[in-house]
């Protein structure tokens, strides 16, 4: 039956956020009320944060989760919620100046809907909810692009993003239908689920069952659109260029995070047993994504497009760690656990990316009819190191973080990603060569990346300032956001402890979810076999993953 109370309990942060968004929509009826939209959004986000904090209570989760099968609560979801809400707060502030007077309520509310979507993606434990949550992420973003600017480029961006998004959604859905068809389940983890089916069918099932593989690949393909990964990356630069810069900062983070989380779910269905074809599929995807992103960014003269293609490259790096999954021991540090590396990287990337776009938005081109036309070309930035030294410093810090330079959090992110791939070389001797080649490709790409990122810094600091090129946008909220981002970037280098620890426990938690399903399955198999053994379940609950593997 419908377990209403635990459901509300588990979904409280999302409910708070969605309620807040709806209230903000209602304030749109009056002009005076709609001025408070940002404030209300802040309240909603803080409310959701508090509700999330309550969720760190494991007992509460365990009792509630037992009765709601559709949800997948735990540290993983909480980590995603925390990061999304924290960056979301920055996004709301950064976009304060973007909407026109009459559209503010809709704009802010849609932003909140999108954030709630990401949180639901992390929570979803069946394909239906996962897909709806993914749509909840992307549908508001289509509209936000259209609302953010009035000129023809924004509309072109809307058109491209929307049509291609619908197209990719159909592909994802087709993949989901095959996942269902091949396994007979819609549930992701736990008993009677796709991952349990995978264990039940043995690890050889992946190689043999083309339909399951088809499901995984089509789903990943569709999600690659959200990730902006290799064959689905085409739209990125055009859409990023067309949207207002701060909305672009959001586009670089929110859909990508949702896609990444969903990809972790989907690839997790294979129990991270990537011995077979999925390994090669992801390998090619990661290598191609990095290379395509970096080489295309290398060619750009427009900073927005450059950062857009660089975000493709970042997806490539993260896919590299996705290939590793939780690593052999499934715990330990972000240096061994690919998932933890991804989760850490995503947070740092989100902040650095948002900061970079916010400084771009702050450097407004004067003399354009569109009030919110941000600096775009490299030459717009020339000499800003001297004329707007703090904003240029924030931009430089964020760009250095994207580059992965030491003294910025981005360095640790790259270190974790590459470290986890290195660590798994020893664990997967059959793929050692492939992984070494992948790391080499990654290193070359990082070098290419450094070349074009440095061009941004060079034009800030080495070129002479030009008259009348840029003027600061009169928005203190936007300024506050880039100040915060610029400060967070080095802070995350010096104090990565909390974030990294949470990322590790989140990754561990998502791993335990898989393992718990396995343990349940094994226990049930024992039950049916009539084997009553008291020792076995305790041993399994200690190291459920290994025992599940051993039982294959």
């Amino acid at each position: 039956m419908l377990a209403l109370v635990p459901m509300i309990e588990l979904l409280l942060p999302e409910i708070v956020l969605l309620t807040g968004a709806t209230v903000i929509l209602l304030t749109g009826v009056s002009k005076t009320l709609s001025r408070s939209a940002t404030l209300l959004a802040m309240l909603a986000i803080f409310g959701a944060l508090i509700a999330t904090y309550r969720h760190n209570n494991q007992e509460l989760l365990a009792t509630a989760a037992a009765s709601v099968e559709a949800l997948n609560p735990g540290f993983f979801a909480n980590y995603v919620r925390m990061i999304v809400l924290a960056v979301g707060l920055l996004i709301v502030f950064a976009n304060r100046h973007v909407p026109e007077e009459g559209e503010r309520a809709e704009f802010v509310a849609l932003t909140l809907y999108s954030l709630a979507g990401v949180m639901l993606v992390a929570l979803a434990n069946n394909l239906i909810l996962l897909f709806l949550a993914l749509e909840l992420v992307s549908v508001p973003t289509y509209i936000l692009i259209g609302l953010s600017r009035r000129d023809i480029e924004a509309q072109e961006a809307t058109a491209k993003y929307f049509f291609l998004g619908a197209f990719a959604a159909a592909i994802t859905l087709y993949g989901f239908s095959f996942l269902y068809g091949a396994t007979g389940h819609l549930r992701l983890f736990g008993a009677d689920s796709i991952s349990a089916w995978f264990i039940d069918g043995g690890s050889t099932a992946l190689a043999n069952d083309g339909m399951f593989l088809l499901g995984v690949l089509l789903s990943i393909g569709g999600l690659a659109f959200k990730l902006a990964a290799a064959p689905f990356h085409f739209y990125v630069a055009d859409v990023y260029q067309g949207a207002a810069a701060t909305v672009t900062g959001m586009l670089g983070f929110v859909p990508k995070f949702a896609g990444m989380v969903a990809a972790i779910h989907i690839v997790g269905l294979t129990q991270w047993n990537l011995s077979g074809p999925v390994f090669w599929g992801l390998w090619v995807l990661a290598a191609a994504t990095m290379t395509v992103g970096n080489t295309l960014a290398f060619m750009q003269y427009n900073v927005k497009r450059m950062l857009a293609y660089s975000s493709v490259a970042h997806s490539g790096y993260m896919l590299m760690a996705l290939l590793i999954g939780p690593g052999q021991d499934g715990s330990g540090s972000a240096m061994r656990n690919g998932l933890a590396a991804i989760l850490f990287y995503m947070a740092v990337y989100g902040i650095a990316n948002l900061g970079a776009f916010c400084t771009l938005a702050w450097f407004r081109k004067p003399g354009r009819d569109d009030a919110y036309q941000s600096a775009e070309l490299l030459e717009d930035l020339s000499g800003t190191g001297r004329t707007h030294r703090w904003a240029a410093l924030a931009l430089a810090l964020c760009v250095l973080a994207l580059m992965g330079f030491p003294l910025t959090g981005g360095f640790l992110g790259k270190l974790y990603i590459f470290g986890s791939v290195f660590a798994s070389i020893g664990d997967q001797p059959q793929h050692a060569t492939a992984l070494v080649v992948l790391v080499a490709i990654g290193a070359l790409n990082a070098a290419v990346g450094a070349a074009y990122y440095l061009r941004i810094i060079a034009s800030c600091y080495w070129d002479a300032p030009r008259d009348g090129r840029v003027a600061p946008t009169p928005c203190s909220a936007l300024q506050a956001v880039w100040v915060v981002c610029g400060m967070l970037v080095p802070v995350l280098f010096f104090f990565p402890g909390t974030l990294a620890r949470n990322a590790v426990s989140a990754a561990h938690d998502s791993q335990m979810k898989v393992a718990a399903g396995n343990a349940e399955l094994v226990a049930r198999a024992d039950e049916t076999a009539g084997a009553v053994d008291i020792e076995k379940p305790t041993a399994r609950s200690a190291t459920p993953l290994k025992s599940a593997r051993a039982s294959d």
Partner: protein
Amino acid sequence: MIENLVYIVYAVTALGAVALFVGLPRGDKPQRNGLLFICMALAAGVSYFMFDAMLGSVGGKVPLIVLSLLSIGGALRMVTHPQPVYSALYFIMVILATTAILVLCGAEFLGFALAMVYAGAILVTYVFVLMLSQQSTLHSDAFTQGFDYDREAREPFWAVAAGSLLAATVGAVIVERDWGGIETVAVEGGDNTVALGRILMTQYAISVELAAVLLMVAMIGAIAVARKHIPQAEDLTPRRPLGAAGREAKPY
């Protein structure tokens, strides 16, 4: 039977691909109707044979096969018809055929919902927009001359190749899969609509709620987008030359 089916699937997709390629609108060039007709007939024949082989000794299989052919044929015609309004009509044909198939297979609720949502609501809107857009033939800009775009397919070869390869790959996987021991089971719970309602309101209750949120978001979005003040016909010629955005200067 099974091993031959793969090749039959390939043959059907290949024939369908040729038919599509030939049938797609080519601007002022004359359409090769003869070839199109032959391919369509062949494809229909082979698919009939294929479906027949798949269904084996099932009784009353003819309506299912005919409806399937109708829906596929309708889809083909929808894609190839040079006039959008006719495309919309063929789309209705696909919807109705699919509805009939679904009802035939026991998914009554889904079938009727499909007919209502698509044929009843969405399509009316489409046609409305189409009519709206076709009334004014005055607009014309640097990119398009009138409505040529309906009569000229884009990249027909590569598109047909990609689409048919995708369909062939998927079809091959479907046909080749060893369904080992899983039997077709009649859906339990008696009445389809009641059973579906129950599962939606219990197991997928959160999803239903979320769908409601999603519909509201779409509605709000549609209103906001439609309300947005946009300078009309502000500049029909682009502000910058084509491709300028990425190439205004050398990257170095």
